[in-house]
């Protein structure tokens, strides 16, 4: 098999789907965060793959670099929130935080 763009895209799609699944179904707030990371990584793979096979340049990679950085920042903030949540509610169960309900 000639490894080409579709393969990478497939992997990234699978990763994205998995990440989505994790976000939707995980009870643990950190688990949800992990799902988000998966999704971000999936999109990163996409960027790099496209820059490698279609664009033949490095723009996608630069994008991927930015995504990584921002993902890190976002992870930091998110985890801070998780910690605050843990402090306030005593648990990281996502269902405890439902003040938006009704």
């Amino acid at each position, binding site marked *: 098999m000639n490894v080409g763009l579709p393969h990478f895209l497939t992997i990234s799609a699978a*990763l*994205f789907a998995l990440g989505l699944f994790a976000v939707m179904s995980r009870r643990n707030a950190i688990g949800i965060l992990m799902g988000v990371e998966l999704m971000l990584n999936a999109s990163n793979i996409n960027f790099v793959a496209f*820059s490698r096979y279609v664009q033949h340049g490095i723009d996608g990679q630069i994008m991927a670099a930015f995504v*990584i*950085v921002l993902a*890190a920042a976002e992870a930091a903030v998110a985890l801070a929130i998780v910690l605050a949540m843990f402090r306030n509610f005593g*648990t990281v169960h996502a269902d405890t935080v439902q003040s938006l309900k009704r």
Partner: protein
Amino acid sequence: MTGDLVFILLALLTIVPAVWVVFSPNIVHAGFALLFTLFGVAGLYAYMGADYIAVTQLMVYIGGVLVLVLFTVMMTRVPQGKRANYGLDRFVPAGVLSLAVFGLLYKTITSVDWGAGHTEPVPTVAEIGTNFMTNYIFPFEYVSLVLLVAMIGAAILIRENKNTQDEPENGESEVQS
């Protein structure tokens, strides 16, 4: 041939732990599975010739984010008996949706002519660095600003307010309110 095998291994290294990340009831296991997934992704980057990105992934994602995640996992552990049960109701719609999304994406991938072509991979570090300083200088600076804000924000979020300290903690007899 070996290239294909390497690819398959890398793919498996990526996907399988990812599955474990999603389905594992133990969050610590999930964290460590994520480690492997990220490794796999870094490998894929390397396979594609994106050397800088691969290394950045290793350092930042695994060395930073994952560590952070694991730290938080450790800090927010609840006693064993109080774990909530999974329940199947949420798996079904989530699963359906995920599958649907995957199906959609896969359909897209296979039905579109991307115009892909092979080239030899070249070292990218110099080029990326140059682009950071010239073409993408603005995003570069903005991102650093974002990082700054994120740090401040995270610090504030973490700060212990006087209001949240209603009950005196064990060991600390005098708590200023």
